[in-house]
């Protein structure tokens, strides 16, 4: 039992490596998600100006930018397999659990990459600052885990349907909204408070959400993948 679990984690790592290499060939997801984020960021900055909004509004804007950028790029991970007809081969090579974990890691890393570039830019362009860096970073990190987990599962669902692009946003919006709400509220706390415990509610909710969604994804992915 222990060995097979280890094996499926190793396979997940191989799936992740495969996706990274494939991504480097075209750089489609990275380009799409980054350009989307940067264009949105500058549209927001241009329309409000540097001092035009309070910090509360800015923390909401930051999450809206992250949220909609992730919707533009995170679905590609499964759509690509369907479009290139490589999913059948992948099915033969490893178990659904490994594939789900591998793709989840890929989406998570992609989202982190997006945040490493967008968040400092947002701080610079919008003249944004937080009182507690530790709260802010934990909210962003836990939020990204939740976002990528939810988005990966929805991506698997829509890759089997037609009209994929529009459907991805429609299906993932209600599922991912808890992350958006808790993320915005957690960032607002990080702007004002310095004590870590003040954000306990939001962090607990983000953590619980990530756990629930990853578990549900692991249980349900099998049905979608072997459809």
């Amino acid at each position, binding site marked *: 039992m222990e060995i097979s679990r280890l094996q499926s984690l190793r396979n997940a790592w191989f799936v992740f490596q495969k996706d990274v290499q494939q991504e480097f060939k075209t750089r489609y997801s990275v380009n799409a998600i980054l350009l989307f984020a940067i264009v949105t960021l500058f549209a927001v900055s241009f329309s409000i100006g540097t001092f035009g909004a309070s910090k509360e509004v800015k923390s909401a804007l930051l999450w809206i930018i992250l949220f909609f950028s992730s919707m533009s790029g995170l679905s590609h991970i499964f759509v690509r397999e369907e479009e290139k007809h490589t999913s059948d081969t992948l099915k033969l090579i490893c178990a659904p659990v490994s594939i789900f974990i591998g793709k989840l890691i890929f989406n998570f890393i992609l989202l982190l990459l997006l945040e490493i570039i967008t968040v400092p830019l947002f701080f610079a362009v919008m003249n944004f600052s937080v009182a507690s860096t530790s709260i802010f970073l934990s909210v962003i990190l836990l939020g990204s885990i939740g976002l990528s987990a939810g988005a990966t*599962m*929805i991506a698997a669902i829509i890759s089997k349907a*037609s009209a994929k692009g529009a459907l991805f946003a429609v*299906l993932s919006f209600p599922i991912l*909204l*808890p992350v958006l709400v808790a993320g915005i*509220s957690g960032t607002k706390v990080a702007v004002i408070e310095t004590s870590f415990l003040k954000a306990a509610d939001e962090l607990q909710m983000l953590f619980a*959400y990530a756990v629930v*969604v990853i578990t549900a994804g692991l249980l349900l992915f099998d049905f979608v993948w072997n459809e």
Partner: protein
Amino acid sequence: MMMLHRIWQFALFIWIIIVIIAAFTWAPLAKGLGEYTRILYFHVPTAWLTVLSFLIGAIYSVIYLRKRDLKYDYYAEAASQLGIVFCILATVTGSVWAKVSWGSFWNWDPRETSIFILLLIYSAYFALRSAVEQEDRKATLAAVYSLFAFVTVPFFVFIVPRIYSSLHPDPLINPQGKINMDSKMLTTFLSSLFGFTVFFVWLLKSKMDLIKIRLNLKKLEK
């Protein structure tokens, strides 16, 4: 058999009429809320039925994924179709109530957000169904989506209103486990809840019978 059906349908008809009359004339008004307490007897049952049909849809989705019989997928769809109707009714009645007691039709109170999320989930569910042609694939994807949505809904229904202060009165299950209602109000309220639930079960059963007939017809055609 037919006669029996007629009798209880007629009884339900009378029951609901009595509930409506009682809600408008017999039940006393709650303190501080005035005339518009009366919407309580219609808003809460619709909200309850929205959640109930969501639950039934999820249960049939699980059964479908285990048994792979298309019948259960159609049942889940039927429950969701009723669910979206009651969801719209709950949203509209809730919005009217919010206007008279809080001053605006919509102010993103956590409860308003949660009913809106349910509405979005139902719409997304039907959008997904319409985007897949193949019957069994449609059934699987829709079942998985409704279960996936089902695990995230508790965050909105139970957790968000606990974290963010809500103006909404506590639903039936409040933290203290008490019901703060006058006995006449409670009687009207529970009868309304019962009447609406029976009405819902009847609607669902009719839809399920229709599905069975349709499937049998298909079998005969083959």
